């Protein structure tokens, strides 16, 4: 029987440094990704190991081109795995599926559909046995949550970038995935809108506690949202370089985080890693 030890950050670990499997939602083991190129194989990721617990919010930072998107799209099942494996609740993934919701960098809404229809597209698929009214209610509930109660019937193409990404958030939560994957979802927005959407995201997340993995380039965003910040080394053959536990209480407010004594310590840690 494995002896359970406690590390500084109050996280329960088995003695080989892994979480007990009952707590693990997402498990990447010896993950490898090779892109064939005209100049020979390019090994983006090698021996990448990462465990993410249930109800955990993990942000991922790393230099541009290190392979963050590659890793996330492999988890989503949209990009084939070259070696190792990925499992959700101890089951190896096979291709994409609605148990892993994705919020893409571009909102990726169907521009010919209304906001409601876009959310319903997923809801109808995931809850085929619900009545029409129930499905409508689910979609409307999440659109309300992201502040779009007045825009149910607006075409996606008529919405601003920020509003489109709100629909993207609603669509992802509405299908009640086990894992939520976010690839720089706010990267294309101005900083004001970005702040608003971070608040909306964290508010819904506080309620739903869906295990989340989010890539970001923004150190402050990484700290504000995460339970842990995962730092990836630069490629080729990128792996996990360092992990930082963020011990702020939830629910958090931006103000309380910024005023916290540890905030600058965390920030310095991340920036040191990136400038290294």
């Amino acid at each position, binding site marked *: 029987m494995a002896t359970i030890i406690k590390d500084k950050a109050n996280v329960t670990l088995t003695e080989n440094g892994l979480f007990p499997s009952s707590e693990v939602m997402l498990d990447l083991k010896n993950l490898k990704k090779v892109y064939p190129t005209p100049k020979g194989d390019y090994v983006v990721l090698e021996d990448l190991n990462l465990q993410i617990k249930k109800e955990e919010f993990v942000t991922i930072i790393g230099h541009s081109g290190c392979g963050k998107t590659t890793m996330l799209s492999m988890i989503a099942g*949209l990009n084939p795995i070259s070696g190792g494996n990925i499992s959700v609740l101890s089951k190896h993934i096979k*291709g*994409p*599926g609605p148990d892993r*919701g994705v919020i*893409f960098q571009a909102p990726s809404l*169907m521009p010919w559909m209304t906001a409601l229809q876009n959310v319903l*597209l997923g809801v109808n698929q*995931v809850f085929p046995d619900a009545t029409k009214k129930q499905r409508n209610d689910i979609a409307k509930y999440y659109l309300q949550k992201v502040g779009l109660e007045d825009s149910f019937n607006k*075409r996606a193409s008529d919405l601003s970038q920020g509003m489109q990404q709100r629909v993207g958030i609603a669509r992802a939560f509405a299908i009640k995935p086990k894992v939520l994957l976010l690839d720089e979802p706010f990267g294309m927005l101005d900083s004001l809108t970005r702040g608003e959407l971070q608040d909306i995201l964290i508010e819904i997340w506080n309620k739903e506690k869906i295990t989340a993995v989010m890539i970001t380039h923004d150190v402050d965003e990484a700290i504000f949202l995460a339970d842990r910040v995962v730092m990836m080394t630069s490629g080729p053959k990128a792996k996990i370089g360092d992990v930082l536990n963020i011990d702020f209480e939830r629910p958090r407010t931006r103000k309380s985080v910024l005023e916290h004594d540890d905030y600058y310590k965390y920030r310095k840690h991340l920036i040191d890693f990136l400038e290294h």
Partner: protein
Amino acid sequence: MKQSITLGKVTKFMGLGFLSTLKDLFTGKLEKEDFINFLRKVVVPLASVLLFIGLWHMGSQSLYNIEAEFKIEKALNDQGPAAAEAMRECIASGDVSCKPNTLPSPAQVWDSYKSLLRDHNIISADKAAFIEKTAALNEKRIAEGKDAITYTGRPSFVDQIFRSLKTVFAGFLLALVIAVPLGIFIGLSPTLKSSFNWFIQIFKPVSPVVWYLLVFMIVKTLLIDSNEDSSFTISFISVGLCSMWATLVNTAMGVSSVDKDYINVAKVLKLGPFQKIFKVVLPSSLPLIFTGLKITLSVAWMVLIAIELLAQSPGLGLFVWEEFQNGANDSNAKIIVAMFVIGIIGFLLDRLMLTIQNWVSFDKTDAI
């Protein structure tokens, strides 16, 4: 938020924006700043029409003179000075027997247009009278199980236009029904795409005449037992086959180039093939499909004339051909009338497609 639909919006939507400028002019709503706009949108196009008619008039005049000179010269060489003088007088008097046969002037074309309309009115009246006269008899014949007597008189010019439109729409529908589904299949599967490619590349450039002959060979054999007139069938099938390629290629291209993000969304949501096609792939390729359909319709209209002529199928093409063969004194002018009618209808068909395209398309900037 209810949007009112005004004349201005509708005409602008159809690409006929100048109409609303005209309306503003007559209702006195035109502001001073709009004056330049008015010049550009109304005066300049109008001036270009007048210039065109002027040039045409002068051109036809000089062609007329060349032809007349030649006739007189010929009479002089063949029969001597007296005959030449007689010819000169005959031409000057405008007599039909010696009228130089060349490009008609705008005025002649206008006259022919009016005479074609008159002719149409006479024929319609005749037809109406015939139907009235035979109505009672036909009822009796039908009651007795015999075929009704139908009007078999000569079709008027306007009747020919409607027959051409009928043929072109039948051909267009055929093209749509073949090319869109086929294009979707080809676009969805890279294997099908590469295996169909030779087929498309080879058949796309084939001329309307050859299509007609091909369809003729096949349909003639298929309908060998029926003594019905197959010219309509042959011509609309030829028109369809001739014009469907733009739609086929555009549909395949639209379907195979759907934004990768949309496909990823479909994959993550695990949409079934049916849902994927109807909810994602088709709507997103609709602008390209419509561009294809627009080209198809204009090609169909263009080749129709040649095919009707070959197939001896009633319509504008046959009208033009018969006038040309017939060589009556106003035949040339009638051919030019047909030319304008063909051109204007082609333009209107194009506008119609553009309007539908704007209607269904989610991306309003895409329409060309």
